[in-house]
Each structure stands twice: as C-alpha cells, then as structure tokens.
C-alpha cells in the first residue's frame, strides 16, 4: 500500500472539449513577449488549467523578464521570481512553507497549487539538480513546468542542452568552413527525470498546439499530488526564426514528425497520447524536412543534414526500448 500523501490536492477534472474550458484568464494581456509567443500561451493555458488558488514561481528566462518588467505585470495569480537554476528549490520551499503554515494554523488549511516554471536553460541545464532533488521529496505537492524553446531565448538565442542538432544560434553560427557547429543531439529531459525518480508520480510532455490535452495534463499533474514535472515544447518565433503565425503549426509538426513525442509517465506507467499514440499504433510520421525547413535556424541545412536528422528521429522510433522515450535497446538474443 502506497503511502497516502499528507497534503490534499485540488481535484481538477479534465476539460471535456474545447468549449468546456474555463473562461477566466489568470495570465492576461500586456506582456512584453514576441509576436506569436508560444511560451506566453503556455503560461496562459497552464494557469487557466490550475485555477485561481495557485501560486506561480518563475525562474529567470524570457517568461520572467517579459512578464514582469517596469513595475507592471500580466499575472492575475500570485507570482514570484526565482533565480535561473532554482525552480526546483523554489517549488519545494514554497510547498513546504505552505504546509508548515497550515500545520501551525497560521493560514487556512486548503489545497493550493504550487507551480514553478523554468525555461530549458533553467531546467534542462542549470536547474536540473534542483529539479531532480525536488522530484524525490514526495511529501510536498508541486508542479515544475519546463517551457522548452530550445535556446536561451531571452538573452539572444544562446545554445542550451535542449537545442536541436545543427541549429543556428549565436553560439553556433554556421560558417563556410564548418557548416554545423552544434552537433550534439537534444537532451531527453522528461524521460531522464521520469526514469530517475521512481517515486515521482507524474512526468509528462505537452505541446500547446494541442491546448486542451495540454491543460488536462497540467490538471492531472496538480491533482495527483507530490512533485510532478511537465516538459512543454514551445515554438519560438524569435529563436527558431519563422513567421509568428506559424507557431501553432510548428508545434503540431514537431509532434507529427516524431521530433517531440507526447507521453506521460504516471506511477511508472508510460502512455503515449494524442498524435503520438497514433504514430506508435502505426500512423506514418511526417518527414522532418517539413518541420525543419520552415525555420530559419535550419536554413543552412543540406540534404545530408536533413537525412542525418531524419535517421536520428527514425532511430528514436524504431530502435528505442520505448519508442521516442527511453533510448535503451535490448541486447540481441544469446549474448
């Protein structure tokens, strides 16, 4: 019998369809983000799913800098800034603080959602240790949402551990002598955290192009309790260099091409969902070139680079232990 969590959580029922989505905004207009900023959309949907009894903690990144500048903010719910690498610590500390205050009777005892967000720089790179630590503290309820725009997009698009193979960034400009400067494959953050924290009850990947599914994953993570983690892929018109109106479409393409699989790991059970589930069940993936050549950061790619990228994605699907998720392979029989 699993340990019963001491903290009650808000039970948030999934939205059954687009029209059932709550009308109120808790992250509203007037933020200084780019045109077509998908990360701002993630903030809006995340907190819309969580509801008014929520505290949001933001690690440094574009969603901090663009959202609370010059004594103004678009946040409706309480929000606090935390340092670049400390989204995990802030989530844990806030959850623990709330619990202590409630236990001592200094505040009304009620379930309050604690959500900490970080970018891929803050989450996949420098905050990874703190997030990992938080995911082992099962007695506190918190959600860490990593909005992954695949670069340090706030400070002018520097390379992060989440930047895809070959992308043009200020740290990896393609040159005449060497066409590709960044030749490392993207970190598999969600799966890494899911695999390494056996008592973490929920890890999921989402994309805001599938808004209702995305909000329902947030609701599930908050309802399930304990430390949880969500990895969101956010097309970034600035860093990826495309027309802002393509934000939605590029999110869909990332999933349909199999570059970013949608899955959740709930109590150790992996489930693919949405378009990814259809791919696992046999629906063909779109070629990655459709996704890559709509973005200026891959404008220097040759056929050879496109083939390499496609081959790596194919490998994710055809050879991995769990398609697109866990990169282990079974040893051949008899060895």
């Amino acid at each position, binding site marked *: 019998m699993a340990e019963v969590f001491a903290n009650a959580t808000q039970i948030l029922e999934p939205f059954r369809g687009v029209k059932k989505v709550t009308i109120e905004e808790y992250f509203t207009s007037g933020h*200084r983000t780019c045109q077509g900023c998908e990360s701002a959309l993630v903030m809006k949907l995340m907190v819309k799913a969580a509801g008014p009894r929520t505290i949001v903690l933001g690690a440094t990144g574009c969603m901090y800098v663009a959202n609370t500048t010059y004594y103004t903010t678009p946040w409706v719910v309480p929000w606090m800034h935390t340092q670049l690498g400390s989204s995990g610590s802030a989530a844990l500390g806030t959850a623990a603080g709330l619990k202590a205050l409630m236990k001592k009777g200094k505040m009304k005892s009620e379930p309050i959602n604690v959500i900490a967000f970080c970018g891929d720089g803050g989450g996949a790179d420098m905050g990874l240790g703190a997030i990992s630590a938080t995911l082992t503290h099962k007695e506190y309820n918190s959600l860490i949402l990593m909005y992954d725009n695949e670069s340090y997009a706030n400070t002018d698009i520097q390379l992060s551990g989440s930047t895809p193979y070959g992308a043009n960034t200020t740290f990896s400009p393609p040159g005449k002598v060497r066409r590709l400067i960044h030749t490392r494959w993207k970190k598999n953050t969600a799966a890494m955290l899911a695999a390494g924290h056996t008592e973490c009850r929920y890890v999921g990947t989402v994309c805001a192009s599938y808004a209702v599914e995305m909000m329902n994953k947030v609701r599930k993570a908050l309802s399930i309790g304990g430390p949880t983690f969500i990895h969101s892929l956010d097309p970034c018109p600035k860093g990826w*260099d495309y027309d802002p109106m393509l934000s939605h479409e590029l999110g869909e393409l990332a999933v349909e091409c199999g570059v970013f699989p949608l899955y959740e790991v709930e109590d150790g059970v992996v489930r693919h969902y949405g378009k990814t589930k259809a791919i696992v069940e046999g629906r063909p993936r779109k070629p990655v070139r459709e996704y890559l050549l709509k973005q200026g950061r891959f404008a220097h790619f040759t056929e050879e680079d496109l083939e390499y990228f496609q081959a790596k994605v194919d490998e994710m699907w055809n050879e991995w232990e769990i398609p697109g998720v866990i990169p282990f392979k079974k040893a051949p029989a008899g060895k």
Partner: protein
Amino acid sequence: MAHFTCEVVYRGIFQKNLAARICRGIVLSARKAGRWGIAFGRYGDSPQRNGIPAKDFAIVADTQEELEQNMARYEPKEVDVTICVDDTLSKGVESWAWYGLQPINRLTVPNGTVLMTSLQSPADLLKDIHKKEAPYNLALIPAKASFSGLWVYKEDHTEARILGALAKIQPGFLSLDAVCAAIQEAEWGSELKAASARKAFERLESRPVKITEGNAETPFSFEKPKWWEMREGVSIPAIPIGKPMEGGKGYVPERNPYFKKFTTRTMRPVIDFDKCVKCTLCWLQCPDSCFDVTPDGLYDANMESCCGCGVCEAVCPAKDCVTMVREDAFEDNASQWEMWRRDKPAYMTWMGDKIASKQHVVRSHGFRFRGQYEEEIKQSLDQGGTEITAGIPGENAVGKQR
C-alpha cells in the same frame, strides 16, 4: 566642428540586421569621408522581441573629441534624421522599455528629416504621424518594409538605398561617393548595391511638413509610479480578475494597463462575424489573450492587446473568417464587434474593403520557406527595386491546404 545624429526605428528581430547594417554603413561611410562615427543599439531594447519597436543610433562627428562628447550621453535626446524602416511605425513607437506611445518624429530636430520606406503617399502617412511643434521634412523611399528574421537576412538593397538617400539629406557628412565606397568595401557590398544607393540618391523626394500637418491625437501615455508610491519590497500589484460583459454572459479579462500593444502590430485580424462558427480556437490559442468573449458567443479581438501575430488566422477553421490585414489600412483601435453590431451592412462594406486589397493582405515578415528571400529579391530587382509583392497572399486559404 559639427556632428550629425541619426536614429533607426525598426521592428525588433525582424529588422534587427537591417538596422544594424544601416548604422554600420553610416559609420563606414563617414570614415570614407574622413569623419568619425559610432553605431550602437538602445540598451533597453535588448533583449529584443519579435515585432516590438526598437532603435539603433549612429553618430558622425568631424573630430574624435566631438564624437566622444556625444558618446558620453546615455542616448541621443534629439536626432537630425529619423529613419523609419517600416511605415506601420508611423503611428508611433512603443518599445519594450517605454512608458506609453512616442510619436515617430519626437526626436527629430526642427527642420530635421524623417526618412521612411513606404508605398503610401505623404498625405496618407501624415494621417498617422503625429503633429510636431516644429517643421520638418518627410523623405520617402518607395518600398515595402523589408522584413526578415534573425538568421536569414533579406538582401533586398534596403540598407544601400537608405544610405544613398542619407547622402542626399546630409551631404555635408556623407558624400555619395563615400557611401558607395563603403558599400563596396563592406562584406555585404557589391556593385549592384552601390548602384541601388546611387539610384536612391537621385530619386529621393522629400516634402516639408508644416506644424499644422499631422495626426492631432494625443499619444497614449500614463504616469510612472514615483519611488515613494511603490510598495514595500519589489512587489507589483497583480491584475484583478476580469468581469462579465453585458448581462454576465460574455467575459472581458482585465489587462495590464501599462503595456498596450498599439505599435507592436504590422498586421491585425479583421473578423467576419457572420462566418464565425464559435469554435473558440482563436480565443484559446491567442498568446496575448486579446479576444473578448462577447455576450452572443463571438470573439472580439481587442486592439489594445493584439500584437498581430496571426495565430488566430492560422487556427481558424472557418474559411475567410479571420483575415490579417496590414496595419496601415486602419485609423483607430475601435472594436470591430461593436461596429458590426451597430450597423452590419456598413461593417461588411468596411471589412470587404480592407480584405480585398492585395497590397494589404500580403504578409511580408518572417522566414516561411527556404529560398523565399531569393525569390522575393529576384522579383524586386526585376521590378526595378520599387515593390516586392512576394509573400503569400490570402494566407487563410493557403495555410489550410495541408
């Protein structure tokens, strides 16, 4: 001793490289003419955002000492020439870091010049450009705004043409020969580009603007909080939750009152309310939460918060329901839904007029597909460098053929 100061007002990211090249070109040309110069960007606009107005500056001086005097300032308070590389910015500038809207000609000195790339007539532009207490000149280079992105630069000669025009406006500082020599020497230079600069020099037309001319509107502004008015710690009051609209059926979110998106837009959505199927997707997928839910279940794009990204058009499943139209086709930020409700036939005429113009619905910014800029530039050069019509007209239909 004399010096010359110039600002380039541009759209963050989209025209970042263009503005940097113009300012660098000014300095290189000044060096060719035996002067000193420096080019720099406004600190507050870095980190830049897509589409949000930003500024770069160039200062040219006769001597090094005079240049240093000017560099000791945080940024120029007045400029001899304001270069505006997107005519939708003629409505004013609200950059990332600014409080309120500033007229495009605000820093221009009396009898200075506002140099713009535009296909509009001076009379049309002056409907948007705010009145100024002093006369100035309006110089126009007939061209569509040159938008590209961060990594893929659009080599459409805009920077060469601006430099050529500048040689005509400020002959005492930049001679045409110096400009052409600088263009040829720079890494992006070519004989063809120098020819474009010469052509712009010859063809540039400017017109004096009197103090009575221009948009009479008072630009949007608000009081900055004083330090003693701020709350303890570094805390900011949250936005209150929104309120129901008329009878409690609709919903209007409260919005951050201190950052409007008046000038972040190059295009805005025009909505055919009769074609709306009430699917909610525009409202749900709008990153700026700019749609108000109306009592009749329609969605009204609020022009104080719309930044014109076009995601609503991209996600709308109803054909021709949402159409992005160039910002210069509009005079105000009034509610389209209210206009439609007041007088439907009049609204349909107004809307039909906006979306029928091919010039107004062609989208010219962002990287869309490999080879796009090469195609556009070829067309531009074939047509004598006056107008670029490439881009994808009628996105609404094309975007859905998937």
